[in-house]
């Protein structure tokens, strides 16, 4: 299968700290990768580089044929809007917009807002009855499902999820993981940061980082 993501020798330096150090790997289209490692191992920085939120100090990142490191600020914005769907641990919803409006906001930045389509995607994550609720009126699990719907609405090539279940209770964690599994089965490419070995085992492969280095890449047995 063709590589959707190619990372070659990525290094990210913050002052004296080398957060990511010469990391290389490939991700095939439709693959689910778990990025694991202890706190401070560079997982989030790696995800941010793949998502175009940070530019690496050195190395090359290619996503769907796009050389991310060569993009201008404006092109990076476009890249984030078209190629990537983000899901964050803290949900990061706009607090004064309703669930459906949060999803429509991503549509609006991508092309044109379509409330019906946004409602359909929210329906897919089980939130048909919560469209007009503000984030403050939703549980953590529901907020994360809104964030998932927002990540999916523009049909991105790559879903980047940074500890999406880190702030959820067990029941909501299960719901979100089931949704991610469904997305994987539907052919989406997912890179998911997690501390949990159990969640790591749900992925096709695990990339393990330690002190910014690539410590281990392993395929999960099925």
């Amino acid at each position, binding site marked *: 299968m063709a590589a959707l993501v190619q990372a070659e020798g990525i290094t990210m330096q913050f002052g004296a700290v080398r957060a990511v150090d010469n990391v290389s790997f490939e991700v095939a289209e439709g693959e689910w990768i778990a990025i694991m490692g202890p706190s401070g191992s560079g997982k*989030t920085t790696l995800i*941010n580089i793949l*998502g175009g*939120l*940070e530019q690496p100090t050195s190395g090359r990142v290619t996503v769907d044929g796009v050389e991310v490191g060569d993009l201008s*600020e*404006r092109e990076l*914005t*476009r890249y*984030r*809007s*078209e190629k*990537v769907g*983000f899901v*964050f641990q*803290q949900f*990061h919803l*706009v*607090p*004064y*917009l309703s669930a459906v*409006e949060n999803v*429509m*906001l*991503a*549509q*609006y*930045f*991508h092309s*044109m*807002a379509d409330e019906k389509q946004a409602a359909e995607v929210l329906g897919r994550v089980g939130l048909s009855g919560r469209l007009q609720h503000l984030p403050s009126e939703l549980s953590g699990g529901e907020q994360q499902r809104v964030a998932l719907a*927002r990540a999916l609405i*523009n049909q991105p090539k790559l879903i980047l999820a940074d500890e999406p279940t880190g702030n959820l209770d067990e029941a909501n964690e299960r719901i979100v993981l089931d949704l991610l599994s469904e997305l994987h089965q539907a052919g989406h490419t997912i890179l998911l940061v997690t501390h949990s070995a159990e969640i790591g085992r749900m992925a096709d492969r695990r990339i393990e980082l330690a002190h910014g280095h690539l410590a281990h890449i392993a395929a999960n047995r099925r």
Partner: protein
Amino acid sequence: MFWRIFSRLLWASRGRLALALLAVASGATVCAALVNLDWDAGEKFTREFRALGANVVIAPAPSQDATPAMDENAMARIDALHLPGIVAAAPYVYLAARVGEQGSAVPVIVAGTWFDQVARMNSWWKVEGQWVTGRNDREHCMAGQDAARLLGLSPGSRLTLQYAKQQMRCTVSGVVTAGGSEDSQIFISLAAAQALAQLDGHIALAQVSVRGEAAAIEEVMRQMAAALPGLEVRPVRQLAAAEGQILERIRALLLATVLLILALSGLGVLAATAGLAIERRRDVGLMKAIGGPVRRVMRFFLAEAMFIAVVGGTIGGGAGLLLSRWIGQRVFAAAITPRLVVLPLTIAVMMGVALAGALPLRLLGRVRPAEILRGE
């Protein structure tokens, strides 16, 4: 979608927005009132100035004649011109007469004039007693306060005036305090003065009070000069210059006040938007992270600043027009005409103020999404 998000944004920040709106609306109120006042200031102030006396003098052109005189008909011709802005026009005959019986008579300047016109153009003169009301009254006269003191006159005193071989008696109707050379004069009606000096149908000069700004007054003078050939129509230079300076200074004061208030309004908006910018930093970072182009994201926040300017400017502009009416009635005892052009002008100026004051919002464009998502 823009308006939908924008309305949510407004509602979410209604507290801070109300503060910024208050700053802009109060600034706009005072600015609109002062600009409207400034527009009418020339007309209103010159109207006030016209209570200070004549500002145009009509006299025979300089000649070899020792005592040049002009035809009294000039007054009728001025009246027939129906010129706008003429508040009053008074003819004058001046006589170096004597007061008292022969032997003990005291020299005094006697002015013959039309009392009704003099009263109208010198409304600030203080009169102890009464003005003489009839234009041809030969029984009553008025005395300047210095002349009255010198001659021991008060309202009701009887007075004998002698000029050449003529003599007349009159009763002092009022004592005038004018603060000028008039205080040492005796005033009698024009008809009485002409009879005393045997100058029937002639006057020495005419004083005219013309209302309006410099250009309007000059136009009135030009028309009077054209209608009165052989006569010299000239402004009372000192008065005109002083009026011009006062007007200039008042306008400079108004302008300085407007600029100061605009600066204060800008600071008010700056304070309110600085708080908003801190609140919005996270939203902007998030919007940029999910693919929001900087210009599209910033449009929401700049629209917020424009909303403050337009709503604050409209409310303040309207209130300012009402305030200028009230000030006009209190200060000039005449309504200031509300000029609707002040409203869009105020809104435009407030847009500038709000944009300048919204500098912290513009800095949001530099927010780096990764830093926001890291919680920095």
